[in-house]
């Protein structure tokens, strides 16, 4: 009997090639999407779960509140924290600090000379806390010597051309260091990344300097591993006491008037990726809401495909009616037929799963490239994955199979065999509701993709208020007048000016200034003459710094402070009524402390007063997610990387290709062999939006899948309708309806659910994208045109899908339609 059923199923599948193809294609696309989305979600949820003993590994995070515009939550902490915690907490097995890649050192070996952005300074115990498998040497002990390095396999190949260059020497900022261990590359689902790790004990390491910078200088991550059996809760409970005892005295000495409060806590390594903070992250973290949203979209795609499956199976009901009638007449019970049709549904989903697995395997490498992940789809070696896939498939097959099987097995044999009316396959309202639902999903996803694309374009081009086209950034620490003047002399260079990392939003440094008796926190950023002009930032009032005013230069001031330029946000923060009103006003700040040792040295210094000479528009090189901070600018001595880290060069757009090599030659002459590190300002900005772009790409892909699955569904429904309304169409034609009358009738049937879907989808999309846009301080307005465009696109897609089916049916001769009965 089973053989007979299987034969009927397979032959039916083969005979209805088009139906079967559509049914399986829809399911397969949806399953493939679900598999890939599932892999992505699993990857997001699995950050650092590969770390041995990860239950005992934590990052110390802190929240600073007080006289700040808003609380800061960050995962970088003061350098001194590590030693103090080691003293006070016997539960800690290891503590290690890690510096991010903000100030890349020059690495050289033979002809190779690279400014290594993936260079990380770490304490010797770091690899006892977190380490990928060792390739050679022992990473856990390698960094105990001050001149030792640990390389990843990729870095070993990059610098030495082989996997185990133990003992090999690299010049790090001019000092030789040798490779003591090689580790595997970091998994992409790790909160730590980096290719070359130097011991913090090295003389040129940044960690001691960053530690000396004091209790309010937060640029290092502090990682801890608890002793086996030690309880994180006990440590956490003792942290407030620790902060009061060990940190607050120093903090209050540095910033006596700011009433700061500091809170520390232990963030489990496996939790931090989905618990993002605003600053100090070295590896991008993800908003769990976005992961959840992508997961939900994956689920919706499967639901939509399952709906299509139901529609298609019931649509074919009338074709199977005679088979059902004959089988019943010959003694098959309803249960037998139910089993047969359920089995058929399972055959379909099984075939779809096989196709889906193939699609997923083909698409995954591309997805990995886009998302910069190393997700694997090893379903044979991963029983959990295999079982999940099979169970989900079986559940979809059973759920989607039940309804068609019930409808088909319920046909009355007498009626079908006589050719009389087939039992109503019913659920017309249900099917319409399903179409509306499908198009709702489609339109929401479409709108999300459009909005994300618009916001990204806006963020890169306009939100920052910086005219960065034809501007190149050349990193040099420090950027000197010699370099600037040499580059300025190159034909094709319109202008050049040094600036601090603060001016291009690489760092932000805050000073507590006093103006007219009120205390305000302002960001500060040293710049060079001509900096604002390069970015076409024209003063709103007053003037910018000019080389022919010697008093503008901070180098000419010792006992008093040079004049300052402020941005519009600072005009409001300082309480002036207008930009014009700010000109000539006096602001008191810590000029000497800032310009000589630059910030947070732990020593207090007297206030100096400066006059405001100009106001510039708000601008940022940072993410438009954050509001532009009130900031003041001054011309400082170019003594180190904090005062002057980058040369901003505006090129003549017409001659860029000839000019860049000339600039590079100048760099070679001036830099004494330091590696060149230059980047177009527009690319520099783009780095901030990688996550947004990836999210956008992901949503766009989902939109595409949703569109194709929804189209298949619509096509299925139009086929179903054509079949079901054949008689009606024949009658109408006999009554004198023309082909175009019939076409209009059929198209309207599919048009109205799409129109209804628009009405439901618009408010949903509006609210969702409104919520998403709230994350940006500078954002686009949601335009009604976007909604109309997405709606129109959905209508066009829907009509195009059903048009040909409609055309075919409407042009058929009425006699063939009537004979069908």
């Amino acid at each position, binding site marked *: 009997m089973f053989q007979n059923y299987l034969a009927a199923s397979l032959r039916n599948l083969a005979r209805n090639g088009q139906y079967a193809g559509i049914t399986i294609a829809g399911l397969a696309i949806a399953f493939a999407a679900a598999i890939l989305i599932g892999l992505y979600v699993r990857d997001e949820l699995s950050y650092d779960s590969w770390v041995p003993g990860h239950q005992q590994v934590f990052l110390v995070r802190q929240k600073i509140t007080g006289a700040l515009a808003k609380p800061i939550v960050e995962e970088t902490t003061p350098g001194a924290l590590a030693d103090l915690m080691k003293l006070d907490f016997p539960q800690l097995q290891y503590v290690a600090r890690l510096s991010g890649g903000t100030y890349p050192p020059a690495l050289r070996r033979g002809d190779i000379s690279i400014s290594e952005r993936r260079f990380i300074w770490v304490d010797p115990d770091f690899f006892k806390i977190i380490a990928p498998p060792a390739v050679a040497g022992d990473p856990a002990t390698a960094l105990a010597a001050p001149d030792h390095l640990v390389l990843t396999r990729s870095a070993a190949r990059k610098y030495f051309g082989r996997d185990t260059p133990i003992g090999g020497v690299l010049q790090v900022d001019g000092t030789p260091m040798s490779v003591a261990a090689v580790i595997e590359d970091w998994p992409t689902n790790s909160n730590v990344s980096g290719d070359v790790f130097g011991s913090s004990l090295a003389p040129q390491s940044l960690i001691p300097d960053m530690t000396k910078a004091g209790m309010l200088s937060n640029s290092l991550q502090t990682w801890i591993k608890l002793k086996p059996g030690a309880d994180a809760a006990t440590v956490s409970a003792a942290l407030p006491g620790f902060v009061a005892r060990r940190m607050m005295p120093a903090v209050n000495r540095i910033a006596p008037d700011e009433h700061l409060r500091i809170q520390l806590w232990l963030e489990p390594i496996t939790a931090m990726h989905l618990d993002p903070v605003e600053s100090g992250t070295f590896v991008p973290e993800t908003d769990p809401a976005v992961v959840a949203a992508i997961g939900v979209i994956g689920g919706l795609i499967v639901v939509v495909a399952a709906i299509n499956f139901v529609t298609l199976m019931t649509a074919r009901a009338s074709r199977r009616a005679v088979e059902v009638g004959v089988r019943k007449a010959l003694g098959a019970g309803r249960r037998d037929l139910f089993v047969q049709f359920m089995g058929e549904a399972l055959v379909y989903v099984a075939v779809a799963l096989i196709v889906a697995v193939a699609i997923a395997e083909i698409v995954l490498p591309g997805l990995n490239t886009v998302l910069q992940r190393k997700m694997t789809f090893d379903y044979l070696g991963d029983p959990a994955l295999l079982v999940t896939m099979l169970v989900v498939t079986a559940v979809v097959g059973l759920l989607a199979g039940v309804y068609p099987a019930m409808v088909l097995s319920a046909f009355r044999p007498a009626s079908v065999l006589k050719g009389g009316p087939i039992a109503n396959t019913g659920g017309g309202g249900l099917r319409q509701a399903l179409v509306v639902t499908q198009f709702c999903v489609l339109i929401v996803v479409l709108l999300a993709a459009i909005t994300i694309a618009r916001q990204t374009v806006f963020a890169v081009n306009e939100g920052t208020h910086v005219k960065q086209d034809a501007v190149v950034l050349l990193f040099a620490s420090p950027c000197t007048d010699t370099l600037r003047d040499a580059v300025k002399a190159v034909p094709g260079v319109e202008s050049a000016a040094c600036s601090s990392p603060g001016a291009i939003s690489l760092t932000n440094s805050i000073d507590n200034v006093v103006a007219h008796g009120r205390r305000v926190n302002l960001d500060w950023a040293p710049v060079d003459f001509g900096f604002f002009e390069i970015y076409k930032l024209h003063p709103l009032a007053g003037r910018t710094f000019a080389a022919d005013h010697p008093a503008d230069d901070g180098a000419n001031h010792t006992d008093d402070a040079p004049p300052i330029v402020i941005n519009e946000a600072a005009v409001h923060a300082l309480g002036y009524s207008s930009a014009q009103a700010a000109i000539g006003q006096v602001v008191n700040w810590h000029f000497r402390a800032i310009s000589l040792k630059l910030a947070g040295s732990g020593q207090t210094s007297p206030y100096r007063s400066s006059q405001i000479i100009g106001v510039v528009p708000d601008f940022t090189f940072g993410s438009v997610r954050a509001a532009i901070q009130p900031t003041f600018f001054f011309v400082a001595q170019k003594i180190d990387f904090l005062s002057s880290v980058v040369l901003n060069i505006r090129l003549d757009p017409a001659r860029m290709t000839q000019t860049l090599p000339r600039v590079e030659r100048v760099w070679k002459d001036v830099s004494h062999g330091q590696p060149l590190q230059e980047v177009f300002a527009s690319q520099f900005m783009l780095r901030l939006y990688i996550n947004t772009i990836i999210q956008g790409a992901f949503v766009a892909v989902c939109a595409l899948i949703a569109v194709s699955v929804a189209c298949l569904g619509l096509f299925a429904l139009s086929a179903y309708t054509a079949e079901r309304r054949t008689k009606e169409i024949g009658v109408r034609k006999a*009554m*004198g309806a023309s*082909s175009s009358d019939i076409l209009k009738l059929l198209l309207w049937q599919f048009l109205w659910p799409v129109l209804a879907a628009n009405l439901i989808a618009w408010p949903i999309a509006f609210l969702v994208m409104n919520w998403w846009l709230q994350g940006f301080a500078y954002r686009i307005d949601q335009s009604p045109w976007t909604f109309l465009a997405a709606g129109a696109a959905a209508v066009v897609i829907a009509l195009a899908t059903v048009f040909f089916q409609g055309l075919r049916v409407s042009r058929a001769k009425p006699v063939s339609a009537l004979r069908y009965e």
Partner: protein
Amino acid sequence: MLKLENVSKVYRTSEVETQALGEVSLEIADGEFVAIMGPSGCGKSTLLNLLGLLDSPTAGAYWFFGEDVARRSEAQLTRLRREHIGFVFQSFNLIDDLTVAENVEVALLYRKVPRAERKQRVREALERVGIAHRAGHRPQQLSGGQQQRVAVARALVSAPKLILADEPTGNLDTANGEAVMALLTEATRSGVSVVMVTHSLAQAAAAQRTIKLLDGRVVSETLLAA
């Protein structure tokens, strides 16, 4: 007046060629009631489809009220059908999703009759066949006889010159069958030609002329006394 001259119809599929009608010639006068009889597969329905412009002949000429329509386009046939022909089918062919009144209205919908006039004429047609009290019901809520009366109303409502009936009483009991026959006969009095396919000699007797078909050819014509 309708006139067929040597009309044949051949159905071709990839493998076989079937001659459904071979060189049929006949005339039907205005207001004439003609019955077509013959065994299954003799070409009755094909003839009716040709007469009703639902299909075009393979060869021959068809003069439809003075126009040769054998080689017209689908659009022109649609126009003629809309203006001049009403249909009654054995299986009623009412649209399940529409009410009785709406089903009748379909015949006027494509003739661009103004809405108010449509409602008026639908009501009159339903009264004429005695089914006005079920105007708001769905076809499936009616008996077979009632459904066929709706179908007749649908054929009459557009005031056609020709009504084609394909075994209109085939699915009805005797009483209902006779009622439908009476409606058709009455229609001929106002000058409408009626062509009816039937198996029943008794029904054929109601017609003025009976044409017998066998294997796609006319084998006899019987003229009954008017």
